């Protein structure tokens, strides 16, 4: 039983680490924005809470019950969008979705000032080969979208 399981490209070390020990899990005392995502197929749920500083996202926490992909996606999303302004965060989200539906071999969409690079979120690229799991990684972004579309809590 010493041989490790073949985890393919999907369960990257970073993903597994963050799923085990998320850095942004928890709740905010006074969240300004809250959004939720639910996947009825598997019961996964995530709640995203935001603190804004003017137009900038200054603090993010998520409360996630889900699979490793969903947990890590929530945690890495939280990390990535912290410090961005809302338009930039939304841009990252669009880029993230685009990456997941890209055909292998297609050039990645390039980052601009409005849509910053995906950075660590690139770890989810192998999901392309697991289409049924894509919504696991998108769930936190659904929650974020909901959070940002609410004017107040």
């Amino acid at each position: 039983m010493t041989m490790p399981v073949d985890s393919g490209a999907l369960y990257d070390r970073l993903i597994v680490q963050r799923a085990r020990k998320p850095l942004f899990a928890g709740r905010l005392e006074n969240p300004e924005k809250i959004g939720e995502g639910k996947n009825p197929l598997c019961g996964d749920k995530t709640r995203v809470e935001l603190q804004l500083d003017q137009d900038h996202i200054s603090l993010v926490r998520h409360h996630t019950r889900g699979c490793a992909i969903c947990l890590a996606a929530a945690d890495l999303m939280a990390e990535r969008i912290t410090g961005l302004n809302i338009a930039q965060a939304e841009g990252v989200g669009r880029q993230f979705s685009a990456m997941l539906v890209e055909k292998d071999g297609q050039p990645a969409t390039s980052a601009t000032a409005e849509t910053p690079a995906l950075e660590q979120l690139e770890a989810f690229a192998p999901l392309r080969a697991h289409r049924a799991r894509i919504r696991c990684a998108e769930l936190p972004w659904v929650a974020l979208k909901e959070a940002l579309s609410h004017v107040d809590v």
Partner: protein
Amino acid sequence: MSAILEKGPVHQFDSAAIRQQFPILAQKVHDRPLVFLDSAASAQKPNAVIDCMADTMRTQYANIHRGLHWMSERTTEAYEGVRDQVAAFLNAPSREEIVFTRNSTEAINLVAYSFGALLKPGQAVVISEMEHHANLVPWQMLRDRAGIELRIAPITDEGDLDLDALQDILSDGQVALVAITHMSNVLGGVTPARQIADMAHAAGAQVLFDGSQFVVHRKTDVQALGADFYTFTGHKLYGPTGIGILWARKALLDAMPPFMGGGDMISTVTFERSTWAHVPHKFEAGTPAIIEAIGLGAAISWVEKVGMEAITAHEAALTSYALTRLADVPGLKVIGAPKDRGGVISFTMDDVHPHDIATLLDRNGVAVRAGHHCAEPLMRRLGLTATARASFGIYTVQEEIDVLADTLVRIRNFFV
């Protein structure tokens, strides 16, 4: 390890010969040999079925029933011949009681619509806590459409139907139909159909069994069961997709209005009024799934050649073996402990999410299902949101269960 490993029917069954008849089993997935443990969702197809369908299209095909030419007459004979085969397979009293549908789901919807049309507001339909959505949503729709009450028979913590509770539910005499699965697709439990039928009949109710899972694993005898309706689906029985079966007692079919209208289900048509064909044709509107029905016939012939008793014994031995092996996987919990289990095992493993289990098993060539298995209310009853599920078929072998168990151990190590 249990005694089953050293002896028993597993080895009396020529698995190698059987596996050779399923070309897909020679496929590799992620460079690993395919270990297909998802037969409860849909079974793979033997050459006998594949070749039969291809040969039909190559040598003997035309639309049926209304044709007077050779191809049409021969195709009609082949199609109608399968009705005889299905009648024999279920030990139905008459071939006219066999209705071809798309799948179990359509068969149950047909009953909910056409038998449902005979019910009166205030009458009740009983289902159980462990039904597949196919045997739940159609009754909800009937409830909402026609003011029928929907009652839920609970299950025990082990996953058996609670017969005492069912008795209570039936006691007011308002129940018109008890519709219960004959084998759970999540817990694997076989329900005591004869007892349920007797209880239902004593309370003046008809009984429908959803045999989607059962017919694949055991000999089915609708008369011995005392059933009034019975449904199954071709693709789980090693047959094609697009074809399913409703069996019902002729008196019921005769009394029920048609479900869909169109060609082949009529006797005469005028703009003012149409009259219906005799059963079963009354329920088969339009060009049926001709090639698929013929393919189902090939599947049944093939299963009967292997022998249902041999299949039952093989799968029982495999299931015991699997339960033993899975008991050794740290953190693994088998869901439910029904008195009589067929070849379906749902499980969880610590807090590794079933979706992660399924994806990682897949990376290692092992196909299982994960999710709510179209039985959300059952999941809620069990306090779960999802499970992983391994299910066995004719072609499953011990070695595959070893791969499953070993890989699960490694998946756990990966996460914990």
